[in-house]
């Protein structure tokens, strides 16, 4: 049960699974080609799309490596689960931390102290410091 039957006419060791050469070489070529494609796509201006495209290609390449080179296609599903889970946890961390930074980013200074007030005004309209002028002398 450690190895499955659909390794076409290949040697079966006592444990594990032997990947046919043509799979390996094919995977290698595919990866090289995809690398070429991604480099080419970079010189094409797709505006917003560049990053997603590059990442999509990377994902495909990663999948090939994982399934063929790393035997996951023939391996126990749980090992695949382990890999996917770890990736998901990275995304989880990215999602939450990213959302938060995105939320509070406007409150981060950008400029030197003499410009802080303008900066705050620019970064966060209606930000406290900006209102100092309007409420000036409000105390009296």
């Amino acid at each position, binding site marked *: 049960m450690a190895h499955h039957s659909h390794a076409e006419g290949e040697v079966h060791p006592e444990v594990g699974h032997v990947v046919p050469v043509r799979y390996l070489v094919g995977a290698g070529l595919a990866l090289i080609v995809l690398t070429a494609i991604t480099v080419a796509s970079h010189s094409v201006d797709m505006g917003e799309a560049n990053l997603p495209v590059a990442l999509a290609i990377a994902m495909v390449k990663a999948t090939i490596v994982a399934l063929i080179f790393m035997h996951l296609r023939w391996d126990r599903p749980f090992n695949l689960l382990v890999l996917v889970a770890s990736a998901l946890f990275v995304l989880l961390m990215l999602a939450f*931390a990213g959302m938060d930074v995105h939320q509070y980013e406007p409150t981060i200074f950008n400029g030197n102290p003499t410009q802080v007030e303008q900066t705050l005004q620019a970064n966060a309209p209606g930000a406290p410091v900006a209102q100092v002028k309007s409420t000036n002398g409000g105390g009296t």
Partner: protein
Amino acid sequence: MTTIPLPTSGPVRDTLEARPDSDNYLTHTRGVLSWVFTLDHKRIGVMYMWAVLASFLLGGIFALLLRTELLTPGPTITDDANVYNKWFTLHGAIMVFLVIIPSIPAALGNVILPIMLGAKDVAFPKLNLFSFYLWMSGAVLCVLSLAMGGFDTGWTFYTPYSTTTDTGGVIPVLTAVFLLGFSSIFTGLNFVVTVHKLRPPGMTWFRMPLFLWALYATAIIQVLATPVLGITLLLLIVERTINIGIFNPSMGGDPVLYQHFFWFYSHPAVYIMILPAMGIISEIIAINSHRSIFGYRFIAFSSIAIAMFSFIVWGHHMFTSGQSALMNTLFSAISFSVAIPSAVKVFNWVATLYKGSVSLTTPMWYALAFIFLFTIGGLTGLHLATLSTDVHLHDTYFVVAHFHYVMMGSALIAMIGGLHHWWPKMFGRMYHEKLGTVACWIIFIGFNVTFFTQFMLGSQGMPRRYYDYQPEFQVYHVISTIGSYIMAFGFTLTAVSLFGSLFGGPKAPANPWGGRSLEWQCASPPPFDNFAKTPRAGDCYDFSAVHWDEKTGGYWVDESADAAKDGSHA
């Protein structure tokens, strides 16, 4: 040493027939090297245990120093605030990274888990030893950092303070924690594989003892969360040494991002501490009530549920940290979800007592203390998960009290309870039962005196990590300090009763409590390879097959009952 007379239907499975009790894992090979290079999970576990207890002593000393300093406002035993800051930082760092996190999985888990599985060892014995030495080097480096000027960053290493403070011990201790983290990772990795691949025939997932479920859930967290701590500390180190600036506001970095990184590990870490404790309690309560644990599946699932939730609630450490209101709300909402499985566990434990046959052994006293303290710790968690009250309570002594109730009152009490529970198994000696019980009571009382006071202290507005405080708070501080002394006394008694037993304590039977899981069916102390032939596991919570045996002064398990059961199961 005399060999136990072996009855025909032995109280103990094959192992004792297999070889004399004079040949156990402690005596099997001799000499220091046979320990230094041992690959035996039991010996590694025992070494962990002594190391962890030593660290606990160290951390405890710092705790007492802190409490003493706080007897009076202003200077009491040191007039230098920096010294105090180093004390509480050390207390925190030692107790978290050197004591609580490794205490149950690495120390008790290493000894018990494979035997519970009827296995000969963990899946990767060499890795196991390696992770022990990683731990040791971490510990040594931690102590070394004292010599290099100590560190006063607080155990959370918040930037930019941790990157700007000029205490020389910061980088050593960061490295130390980094190593400790990987030690913890490898232990967890080992356990996951062991539980997956080395379960004996008859032990399906839902026939695993709950301690194994707990250790398994813990191991998952260790594997998935700890690497993030590793990279965070690494970034902190390069931040300090070569100014890489990712967390450094003066270089466009973002200190709040560091807190996200840190808590992404450190909140799950809280469950690395408490989950195995819960497992121990499930074992102790079931065994000492001599009845099947109530709602086994709910307890098992709640362990996994807690492990999973633990990854998505870290933001509740950051409600006032400048985290956005949106995320505060989100994290607050999710945080409550952890309360549910925890509550389920408590209810199930109490229900397990119902119509049981409760024998009040020392471990049982610890288990009852745990339920009491964990309930308080858990319920006060509600105050802190609630946004508006947390704003008032955050970073006050209320938080300090809360996490001491959970980490010390629960995790550590359970660890000590488990130590008593498995002590006879580990060393083949019975400790002084009366003394153990009395010590448990003293610790329990001292603990509540110490930390319940701190709830009032905190909600009245006393911030944490304060060297100096308003005179109005003194009355609370004095009471708290007295409590800590009581606790110290209690722990001393425990030490006496446990370590004393090693010198001429009565010989322990294989199964002193009437346990049903496999470790109780193997000699105490176990032989070096636990079971000569892999045993068949029965229903580990069916105590009807457990019988008292006068001759050995312990219980024995009638396997024929198993066989019948398995037949019916099949």
